[in-house]
């Protein structure tokens, strides 16, 4: 598969003015401004193959938007190399943006006062889309995204979910190779989210569009992405499969057992005592040392069992711990880069 995005040693430093409080501070700010350098993104390297659908995660202020802004050509980095589909985004802006689509969840890229259809039709001459292609694409996306009911409504009167669907359609009409989705499901209800996920999955599989998705909603990632990249404090901390992430950070899984009979002692040698409630017990075990199959075999040898359930900790929990406890920042790194 050809390489779609290559980022090497990306660095972006911002100069931020420090504001001093009070009247004296205001005067000082005016005549002797004090600056502080902030590293938004530091030594980030990764590459995306054509056709991949990758989740880009990180807490607020991690540097996600800065990376997206650089990749979409809006921002020039301080240092590092970026090549997307063979070109440097900010150097050939007008030519480059024809090849990409971008959707920002918190801001529409459509013309606010125009009916959706007018906004979309404006894109045809702007991107020089052949009229026939334009019509067939519009028909297809309109069907898949169910745009018909509100296609004549001005963008400003749309619901958030409708607006997002219209925006995604707009980002794809010119058949970009690459789609950037920045928080595409923010503020949407479950049904609307699912609708958008289905569509994203569809264009990724059917049309081979490479997708880079930033989101706070981990169900987006679980549903769509096999590969995730985690960024925090401007550094890329993890780049690998979603399953691998859980394996690396949540070594303790749990096994819930419903016994068929009442047992006084259900402890297993080498394992901490389970939490018990009536005929039920929950064992916590390190799945790297003891596989669930082995644990179940040992239980079945000793007890009559009615039901079993292995639980991996939810991804949400893992990610929360990664952010909060800065698991990746120092100490154990798993597959981190």
């Amino acid at each position: 598969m050809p390489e779609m995005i290559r980022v090497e040693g990306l660095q972006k430093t911002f100069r931020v003015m420090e504001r001093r409080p009070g009247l004296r501070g205001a005067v000082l700010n005016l005549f002797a401004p004090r600056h502080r350098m902030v590293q938004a993104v530091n030594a980030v390297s990764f590459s995306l193959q054509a056709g991949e659908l990758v989740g880009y995660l990180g807490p607020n202020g991690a540097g996600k938007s800065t990376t997206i802004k650089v990749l979409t050509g809006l921002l020039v980095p301080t240092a590092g190399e970026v090549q997307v589909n063979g070109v440097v985004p900010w150097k050939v802006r007008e030519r480059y943006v024809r090849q990409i689509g971008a959707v920002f969840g918190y801001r529409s890229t459509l013309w606010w006062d125009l009916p959706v259809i007018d906004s979309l039709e404006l894109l045809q001459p702007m991107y020089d889309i052949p009229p026939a292609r334009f019509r067939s694409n519009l028909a297809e996306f309109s069907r898949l995204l169910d745009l018909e009911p509100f296609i004549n409504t001005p963008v400003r009167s749309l619901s958030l979910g409708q607006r997002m669907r219209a925006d995604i359609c707009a980002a794809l009409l010119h058949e970009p190779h690459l789609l950037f989705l920045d928080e595409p499901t923010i503020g949407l209800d479950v049904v609307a989210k699912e609708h958008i996920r289905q569509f994203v999955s569809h264009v990724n599989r059917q049309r081979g569009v490479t997708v880079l998705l930033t989101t706070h909603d981990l169900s987006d990632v679980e549903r769509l992405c096999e590969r995730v990249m985690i960024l925090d404090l401007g550094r890329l901390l993890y780049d690998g499969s979603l399953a691998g992430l859980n394996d690396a950070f949540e070594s303790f899984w749990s096994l819930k057992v419903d016994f068929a009979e009442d047992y006084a002692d259900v402890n297993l040698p080498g394992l901490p005592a389970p939490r018990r409630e009536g005929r039920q017990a929950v064992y916590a075990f390190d799945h790297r040392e003891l596989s669930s199959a082995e644990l179940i075999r040992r239980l079945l040898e000793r007890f009559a069992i009615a039901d079993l359930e292995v639980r991996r900790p939810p991804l949400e929990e893992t990610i929360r711990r990664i952010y909060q406890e800065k698991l990746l920042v120092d100490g154990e790194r798993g597959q981190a880069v």
Partner: protein
Amino acid sequence: MRRTLGLYLRLISIQLRSQMQFRFSFWLDVLTTGLLNVSYFFSTYLVLQRFGNIAGWTIPEVAFLYGMIEVAFGTMDMVFSGFDPDFFSVFIRQGTLDQVLLRPMSVAAQIFGSSFVLRRIGRIGQGAAVLIYALVTLDIHWTPAKVVYLPVVLLSQVLAMGALFMVGSTLVFWTVQRVEAINVVTYGGVEVMSYPATIFPTWLRGFFTYIFPFIFLNYYPALYFLDRPDPLGFPVWAPFFALPAALLMLLAAWRFWTFGLSKYQSTGT
């Protein structure tokens, strides 16, 4: 170029369509802004009834100065409304510029197309009325050269004032908030240009000759149209410096704009 122009016209037509939606309030707006602007001339007109002239210029001659610059500024304010610093600072703050940068079309052309305040015809209309009054009342000795040169002067004024809007907007890249001081040379420039230049103290006149060449945009062309002698002793071609001066201003503004835009792309906001 043709493609850009076509797209620009499409963007403008969208603007116009949405502005005409509430017709009554639109025309009320046109009328009252026109009246508001002309009230300043009306004031001068009344005062000159008592005084007869200002620095030797009669009411119709002052009306000529006023009409020219008002028509030009009103037109500029309409065509360059995307570059109006008041508008552009909002544009930056709301992040709309990022959206513009994502589109395969010249950034400047998109900003031109992002706003077209049609109700400025109120200002243009009142300026035109005063200008027509001046042209009818004054006994101008028309020559073919003068007939050709009049629209050239108006165009020069539009471009020069537009350049100032562009500079004002570019400043926003650094300040985010609009820089009100630019009003001194935009709206203030109009005020200065609607009177004979000799009424201003020498230092102020120098400022509006060598730093902002307003004197060549309206006063000197007016001397030529009205066949008035030049009291300041500039070369005889001074009345024809309007277009070169405007083009110089526009070029400088364009350079500054490109510089500001590249700064925006390297620092964000």
